[in-house]
């Protein structure tokens, strides 16, 4: 029996009990729809976490001064005054796995522009800072290497700071006073929004680190050094190179601990991604339970159908249907149910996810993978749960089937 004819007769058989076929399919529709929607929600979460981590610059390493150790008592990390400008220049010079480097200093305080004021942190950075962070300037320009060397009193404002100090005019070329020191604004950063911790990344002022050290903090050492590796896979190499160089420069004995800390964000990225992946798997497995229940529904209805149609099976066998013809017929019917349910479920799950996106403002992503997965799943369920009833039909004795009332 040709496959097209079997398909046609399967459709016709299912049409005879429209309500029943629909209800059976509903199990698969809900199952597949739920799997698609849950995967979309999970993958949406994964995506937004990755996005935020990427915004930090993923091949970035941060070097902090270590904890001061005095007589076995350790104070907080960063309390030691061990990172110097020379350390930074040495790393730049001697570590081949390091691409960009930005020494960091910092200060906080009142910022005044005209009759408006704002309190925020001032980050002293190198002129490669934007490259490392993968940030960009929206208006004006970033300060130059010359500005850093000469400790010029220039600064770049974050969007929030710019909006608060200059609500109606462009801040570029204007002068602001930071702790009474006049700074010329040369640029405004592109809006970044909140980071993963919920902090406003636009509430910031960037100035040359040299200027911050000399004019604001009056503290000669560096608060941190921001480094970007030449590539993501070079991060461990860069870390080793920096560590060896600093240990040598700081004359640390092999049995002594580092007086600095190197952090990289790939750990953070990996952890966050793993967490959301677990979330996705959890959501999808809960949804698959309903797919399983849908499959059992198909099996149930197919068993009823085989019993109801015992006589039909007998007739078909008496006119020459082989066991495998009957098997194929019932298997195809189960498959049509599950596939049709799967397709409707995919449509429903996809539209459902976009509705969730709009209402809950939660990013959802329906990937081709999740569609292929659910489609494959519904085929597998059709075959798996359709096989037993189909086999039962195929193994019927033609005489008994014919005599069945």
């Amino acid at each position, binding site marked *: *029996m*040709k496959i097209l*004819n079997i398909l046609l007769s399967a459709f*016709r058989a299912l049409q*005879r009990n429209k309500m029943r076929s629909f209800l059976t399919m509903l199990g698969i529709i809900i199952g597949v729809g739920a799997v698609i929607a849950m995967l979309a929600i999970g993958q949406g979460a994964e995506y937004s976490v990755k996005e935020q981590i990427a915004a930090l610059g993923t091949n970035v390493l941060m070097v902090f001064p270590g904890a001061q150790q005095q007589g076995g008592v350790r104070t907080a990390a960063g309390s030691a005054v061990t990172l110097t400008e020379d350390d930074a220049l040495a790393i730049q010079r001697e570590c081949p796995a390091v691409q960009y480097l930005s020494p960091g200093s910092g200060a906080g305080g009142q910022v005044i522009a005209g009759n408006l004021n704002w309190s925020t942190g001032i980050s002293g950075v190198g002129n490669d800072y934007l490259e490392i962070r993968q940030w960009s300037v929206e208006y004006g320009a970033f300060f130059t290497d010359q500005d850093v060397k000469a400790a010029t009193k220039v600064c770049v404002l974050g969007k929030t700071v710019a909006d608060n100090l200059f609500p109606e005019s462009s801040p570029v070329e204007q002068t602001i006073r930071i702790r009474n020191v006049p700074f010329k604004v040369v640029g405004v950063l592109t809006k970044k929004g909140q980071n993963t911790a919920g902090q406003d990344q636009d509430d910031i002022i960037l100035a040359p680190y040299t200027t911050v050290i000399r004019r604001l903090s009056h503290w000669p050492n560096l608060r941190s050094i921001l480094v970007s590796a030449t590539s993501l896979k070079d991060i461990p190499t860069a870390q080793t190179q920096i560590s060896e160089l600093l240990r040598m420069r700081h004359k640390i004995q092999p049995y002594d601990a580092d007086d600095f800390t190197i952090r990289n964000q790939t750990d953070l990225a990996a952890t966050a991604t793993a967490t959301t992946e677990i979330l996705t798997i959890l959501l999808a497995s809960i949804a698959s339970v309903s797919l399983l229940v849908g499959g059992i529904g198909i099996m149930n209805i197919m068993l009823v159908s085989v019993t109801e149609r015992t*006589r*039909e099976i*007998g*007739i*078909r*066998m*008496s*006119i*020459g*249907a*082989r*066991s*495998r*013809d009957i098997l194929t017929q019932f298997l195809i019917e189960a498959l049509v149910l599950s596939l049709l349910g799967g397709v409707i479920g995919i449509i429903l799950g996809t539209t459902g996810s976009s509705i969730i996106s709009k209402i809950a403002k939660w990013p959802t992503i329906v990937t081709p993978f999740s569609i292929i997965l659910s489609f494959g799943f519904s085929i597998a369920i059709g075959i798996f749960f359709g096989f037993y009833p189909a086999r039962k039909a195929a193994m019927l004795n*033609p*005489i008994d089937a*014919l005599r069945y009332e």
Partner: protein
Amino acid sequence: MIHDLDTSPAQKDGLLIQIDHLTKVYQLGEVDVHALRGVSVHVSKGEFVAIMGASGSGKSTFMNILGCLDKPTKGTYLLEGIDVGKLSRDELAAIRNLKIGFVFQGFNLLSRTSALENVELPLFYCSVSNKLRKSKAIQAIERVGLGDRIHHYPNQLSGGQQQRVAIARALVNDPSIILADEPTGNLDSRTSVEVMGIFQELNNNGITVILVTHEPDIAQFAKRHIVFRDGKIKSDRINPNPKVASEVLKELPAIDEEEEAA
């Protein structure tokens, strides 16, 4: 017995069915039921045989074996020289498909399936192109005189018409035998004669017909009578004067056409 017992597997000229020493034992729990106790029948091409007997005589079991729906316990059944007892389930299905046409008492048409599609059904189970299948099915329906009702559903047809569709389905694959199991059991007497007329016509065109019936009137249309009793053949003889359905019909009082259609 009027036939000699030639058990050689070689097919004798014109011999369609060679059944020798056939026994069939069913096991019902711990009791063995001997449905057939050594039956030997030979049927040649073009015969019209009526198999008669009371219920429990073994005639239904015999029909099932004849129709390759069941296998004998002992003995041989050669259909056109093929030893049916040695065939697999699938091979038996192929024999039923190609060599045997069934007509049942309850018509056994697929409901909610048109007459044409019912007749096409056997052709789905052998390799026939869609086009040829349709033309063969239409030809078979026209042969039983229902050319104007090919798209009717069984519930839109009278009992006699349904049985004609069933006969068309039995005919469609040009079988060697038509096996009819109580084909007139659910029909009134006039329609019964009409259906017998169709069998006679087919038989006159060379098709072998084997009919199971317990009605002596119906058996009168056959050319040979085999009577079963207690799993054995009680008698096997030629009917010297078979009735002719077309003549019987003329003598029957005409029934109101509208009544029949209802």
